[in-house]
């Protein structure tokens, strides 16, 4: 055969393992991948443009459309950023703070469960998919109980939470904390020592710590390579500095280590939730900060001034101080941040959203060459991408 003949193959945008609409242009030498070029943008909705044309309140429901596998984390990431921007961080009631931490960690477990189920399912272990979605359902019921929504929750508010916990919620959440570690044992029994699972994940998609820096990787992807990059510890926010948890780290930086890291993270999240539940004291869940937080509903029904105040806040929004700020939180997939610029008005001049999957996905360019075509499914799965997150 004269010359080298590579075959170009389009994977996606509708491939079932791409979890959304991702297209990867593969150059193949037989079964071997020579190069992989991801093509993104099929889900671009212009969230940053929309945000520039909305008041700070109205932006909240846009954020849970970013990473829809962990909406609560996205909402909280935005609210934490906004509160720091407004300088009202330390006026949040302790009850609301503790509930938020519990919600963020429940959301992390929910996000990791979707990753585990679909990743294992892609590789062929469909049982794990069914198991993972069983427990995820319990988490979504907990979310539904507090705000009526399973996915697009929009539960937190500037200054606290939209509503208090319903009766019996803490007990139900405790029940989850009690039984969930046993379920993680179940997943591990199916996968951790499974020879097929190990053969499909060990040594696949190796990223060194240098690669992590080179590609701007964050979250469990970075920690799987042994880089201790967890914003809850590096730049603590929202009270995480008072919680006791360890950051699981991998050593080989391959798909198997990233699997172990995420499994351990779910166990650590349970520890954090248990501590948070202990700290849910009696008290209000919404701060009294009149220029940004509307008055309580009961007061609005009684006093015309309160009603007018509410009307003004909803219709006109509140003016944010002039300035700029970047704030990042640790979402299930990595560094999730907001870079906001305000010109002093009720709408941001610019709101750049730093999404974790965007940088993480780029590393597939590094991981794919030399692997088999069948490993592409593993590589996409191990990044734990969410295309709505990438395309904004």
């Amino acid at each position, binding site marked *: 055969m004269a010359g080298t003949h590579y075959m170009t193959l389009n994977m996606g945008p509708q491939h079932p393992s791409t979890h959304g609409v991702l297209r990867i242009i593969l150059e193949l030498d037989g079964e071997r991948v020579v190069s992989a070029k991801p093509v993104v*943008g099929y889900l671009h909705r212009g969230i940053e443009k929309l945000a520039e044309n909305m008041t700070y309140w109205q932006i909240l429901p846009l954020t849970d459309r970013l990473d829809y596998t962990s909406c609560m984390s996205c909402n909280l990431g935005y609210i934490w950023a906004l509160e720091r*921007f407004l300088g009202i961080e330390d006026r949040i009631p302790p009850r609301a703070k503790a509930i938020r931490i519990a919600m963020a960690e429940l959301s992390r477990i929910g996000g990791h469960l979707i990753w585990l189920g679909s990743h294992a399912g892609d590789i062929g272990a469909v049982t794990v998919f069914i198991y993972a979605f069983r427990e995820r359902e319990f988490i979504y019921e907990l979310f539904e109980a507090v705000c009526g929504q399973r996915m697009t929750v929009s539960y937190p508010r500037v200054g606290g939470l939209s509503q208090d916990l319903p009766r019996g919620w803490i007990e139900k959440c405790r029940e989850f904390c009690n039984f969930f570690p046993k379920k993680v044992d179940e997943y591990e029994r199916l996968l951790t020592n499974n020879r097929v699972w190990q053969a499909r994940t060990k040594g696949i998609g190796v990223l060194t710590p240098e690669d992590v820096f*080179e*590609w701007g990787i*964050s979250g469990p992807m970075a920690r799987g390579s042994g880089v201790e990059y967890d914003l809850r510890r590096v730049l603590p926010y929202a009270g995480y500095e008072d919680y006791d948890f360890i950051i699981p780290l991998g050593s080989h930086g391959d798909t198997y280590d990233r699997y172990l890291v995420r499994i351990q993270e779910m166990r650590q999240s349970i520890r954090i939730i248990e501590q948070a539940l202990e700290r849910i004291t009696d008290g209000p869940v919404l701060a009294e900060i009149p220029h940004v937080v509307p008055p309580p509903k009961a007061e609005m029904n009684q006093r015309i001034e309160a009603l007018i105040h509410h009307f003004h806040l909803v219709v006109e929004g509140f003016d944010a101080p002039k300035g700029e*700020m*970047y704030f990042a939180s640790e979402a299930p997939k990595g560094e999730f*941040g907001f870079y906001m610029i305000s010109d002093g008005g009720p709408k941001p001049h610019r709101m750049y959203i730093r999404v974790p999957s965007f940088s993480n996905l*780029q590393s597939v360019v590094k991981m794919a060459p030399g692997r088999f075509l069948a490993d592409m499914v593993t590589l996409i799965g191990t990044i734990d991408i969410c295309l709505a997150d990438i395309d*904004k």
Partner: protein
Amino acid sequence: MTGPVHTPNVLVQKLSDLFEDLTIAQDRGGIPILVVSRERYVSVIKTLRDDPSLEFSILSFLCGVHYPGEAEPFEVVVQLTSLNLAAKVLVKVRAAGEPPTVPSLAAFWRAANWHEREAYDMFGIVFDGHPDLRRIFLEEDADFYPLRKEYPLEGTKD
């Protein structure tokens, strides 16, 4: 985290000593902001990354900003993270000319590749030296830059 937690003020002092001719502001959360000229841009970034006392080794993001009405309306904002210092820093540079141009960082971090493509796609900022400057979210033949302020929210076509 093993490294010491630097309060932003300590870091600002350190950066002022290192870059004597730059004024270092802070954002509302305390992150230092370095406003640099296009000529200094690459060397400042290089120092931030390679200086052993700083080691801002992660490029967390790079984005564009539009300030219509100003002499050089397009700005590029780079955010770097140092795990050793447990700190972040913002570097800002204005793009010049038509099309607005700044040097590319793609040779320093592979991560910059997509971020610069995004800024190009959304604002039309050209990154000099970028190996593959194409649109990333929008279709190749789009003739507009949606995050420019003059572009209407509803779009220009139906």
